[in-house]
């Protein structure tokens, strides 16, 4: 297992390097440049290019960037004069992570509950109710449900603040809005998985053994049905983190989601690369951790994983 982890670690590093290189080249191929604007003159652009070192040959810039990257320096943002990408990420990531973690937790708990309840009430009203929620959650995009929740619970009913991120009350609407899609996916997956498990022979065995219904559900059914959820948690985490952009925009949350889009619109090279590296490392790490948790939950994988 140790060697396997080391090997995967090296592969991950290589993955990140390839990612950075590809993005580094791709953004330079995009038409336009970071400093082009209505009022830019060629002379001033030359000064700015020199200030940021873009007057040097591309390969020099590349090695310079990689060198800085190895020291953990993501460079200066081109749009936010002199602010380093490191600082921006350090100031905004905790907010996005806070929002994301709350959403994942809410979605997981509620999703598992709804999924289990739907399966146990298969074909009854509650099942259809859960399926309805799941369909709405999957099919309605974030910007619709985000705006709708804001309009109803913020502006009309005045139960929660309309926007901003100033305390617990401010988190409820955005967290709920962001978790809806994930909640729906988890509900559907859990429901399907439970329905499959319920008909397994070992459940009948457990019933024959005389275990109580509660014990059967918690020890045998949920424990076995939850495996697919663990599998999709990795991609779901990625989905939530990349999906924060819309919700952060609607609720004016000072997170990092906006830099995803604005970095590209502004052609802020160091911002785009910084985001790429950050998310790249983050996703590689997230998948890695999911693999380990997977091993903990399913002994078969633990053994074969050696």
């Amino acid at each position: 297992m140790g060697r396997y982890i080391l090997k995967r670690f090296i592969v991950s590093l290589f993955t990140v390097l390839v990612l950075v290189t590809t993005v580094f080249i791709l953004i330079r191929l995009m038409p336009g440049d970071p400093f082009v604007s209505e009022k830019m003159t060629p002379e001033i652009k030359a000064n700015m290019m020199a200030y940021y070192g873009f007057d040097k040959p591309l390969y020099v810039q590349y090695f310079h960037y990689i060198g800085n990257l190895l020291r953990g320096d993501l460079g200066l943002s081109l749009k936010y004069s002199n602010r380093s990408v490191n600082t921006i990420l350090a100031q905004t990531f905790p907010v996005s992570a806070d929002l994301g973690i709350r959403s994942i937790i809410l979605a997981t708990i509620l999703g598992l509950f709804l999924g289990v309840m739907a399966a146990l009430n298969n074909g009854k009203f509650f099942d259809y109710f859960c399926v309805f929620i799941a369909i709405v959650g999957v099919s309605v995009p974030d910007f619709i449900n985000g705006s709708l929740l804001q309009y109803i619970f913020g502006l009309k009913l005045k139960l929660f603040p309309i926007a901003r991120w100033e305390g617990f009350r401010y988190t409820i609407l955005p967290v709920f809005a962001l978790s809806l899609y994930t909640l729906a996916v988890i509900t559907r997956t859990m429901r399907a998985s439970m329905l499959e498990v319920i008909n397994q022979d070992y459940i009948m065995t457990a019933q024959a053994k005389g275990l109580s219904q509660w014990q059967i559900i918690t020890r045998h059914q949920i424990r076995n049905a939850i495996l697919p959820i663990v599998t999709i948690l990795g991609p779901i985490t990625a989905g939530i983190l990349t999906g924060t952009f819309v919700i952060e925009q609607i609720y004016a949350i000072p997170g990092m989601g906006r830099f995803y889009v604005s970095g590209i619109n502004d052609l802020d090279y160091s911002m785009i690369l910084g985001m790429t590296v950050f998310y790249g490392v983050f996703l590689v790490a997230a998948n890695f951790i999911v693999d380990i948790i997977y091993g903990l939950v399913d002994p078969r994988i633990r053994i074969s994983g050696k």
Partner: protein
Amino acid sequence: MKKKFVSIIALLLVILIASTTFVGCGSKNSEEKGNAESAGKSQVLTFAQTAEIPSLDPQLQNSMQSFEVTNAIFEGLVRLHDGKVQPGMAEKWDISSDGKTYTFHLRDAKWSDGQPVTAYDFEYGIRRLLDPKTGSAYAFAGYGILNGYEYNTGKVTDVSKLGVKALDEKTLEIKLANPAAYFLGYLSLPCFMPTREDIVEKYGNNFALEAENNVYNGPFILKEWKHESGVTLEKNPDYWNKDAIKLDKVNILQITDPNTALSMYENGELDFVSIPNTLWDKYKDNPKTKLIMNGAIDWLRLNLNAPGKPWLANKDFRKALNYAINREEYVNTATKGLYLPYTRLVLPMVVGAKGGKYTEESPIDIYPTTGDSAKAKEYLAKAMAALNIKDPKDITLELKFSDSAADKALAEVLQDQLTRNLGITVTIKLVTYKQKLADDTAKQYDAVYNGWMPDYDDPMTYLELFESNNSQNSTGWSNAEYDKLIEAARTEVDPVKRQQYFWDAEKILVDEAPFVPLQCRRLGYLEKDNLKGMSRYFVGSDIDFVFAYFE
């Protein structure tokens, strides 16, 4: 053993849930108290900006968000309020008879750290702006200063040759390359704000990145800068004119989504708010809706040298385009009447030489805003005869717009009108905003949608754009008479004569039509009834709240 491990993880998860879910409960009470206070009669202004402030470094800033804050936390030699130049850090000034040398006499004023504001701070700020190593995007603002352009482009390396000199602590001399009546108002731009050399050196690359990394000399002090969230300004108790400042505190929130900002305004959380252009239809008949022209004018720039399209080099064809567009219908269809149809270059608000507005004193009425399809066809026929083209369909024109939904709507109306009224083949090409600008510079377009925000209140800010050697003039249009008139206006001291030069030049430009003027951009907004003294002006800081107050 393994089972225990899993249950420990489960337990940790539960704790994590509990902690993340309930964190922040404690701050709830204090927040509500804060809200209740600001709802009272206290002089606290709250409004929203749509994006994070890119920079509060006076010489590096380049955006409206920055301007609006800088205008309040710093003060230059003069202050521009409602388009009128008022004394700022300079108590009075003398202008030499040739209009080229300005001598400013500074008042006794203090920085927020107690140090006196001196002429050296201004000298340093302007030198820093024009130093090529600063890499300031706004350096062009200093090109009117003697050797400003030369120093910024490295042609002059001796900074003492730059036309800015502190004669002593309280006297600053600025020499211009040419006389410029608008120069005084121009000095209110953020890039001309005084800057403390010792503070810049102390913080290095972190200068002005946080509220505490700079000192302030304006009516307000930057108290807090919560990045991506907003800034808080507080009244400066040491400001020289502090009795004229009524607001105690200003909260500028960063609300990216204009619809969210509007909801917050409706909820009473903001004191004024812009109406999103997409909602204009809903608000245009609301008696509370206010409308301003923010100074931007938009046009289609035509590339006279577009390869394979000789008609663009033909003046009659370009005039036909100008006649063919019914601008009234265009703004009503594409913007629900928000924008103002326009058929010349200089904006209606620009000040004239005789005390009125330049455009009223010097009217130009070549193309009617409703268009004239008969004239359009007449000019098209002339152009086709000259180019020996039989079928108007053979004439192709690609309109290049940026890929936003709003731009697309504008492009489609223009495409429809040009096709309908001229019978030519018009296509639309949507590209990213940055690509549009790059293609514009590289002269890779037939017709590109573009606009201009004025830097100062003078026809020059618009008219010099079409000089042959201006880097903004990518059309390839060059007219010796036009260049001569603009050059003459540049050195003319008599305002009436100068205006005549501008008028003659603009008439040539509109008639020769290297561009198709379309509209002046307007913006709708809502404002609380008891908020007074707000200034919305088309030059400098669009939103000037410095002298605002609540009744």
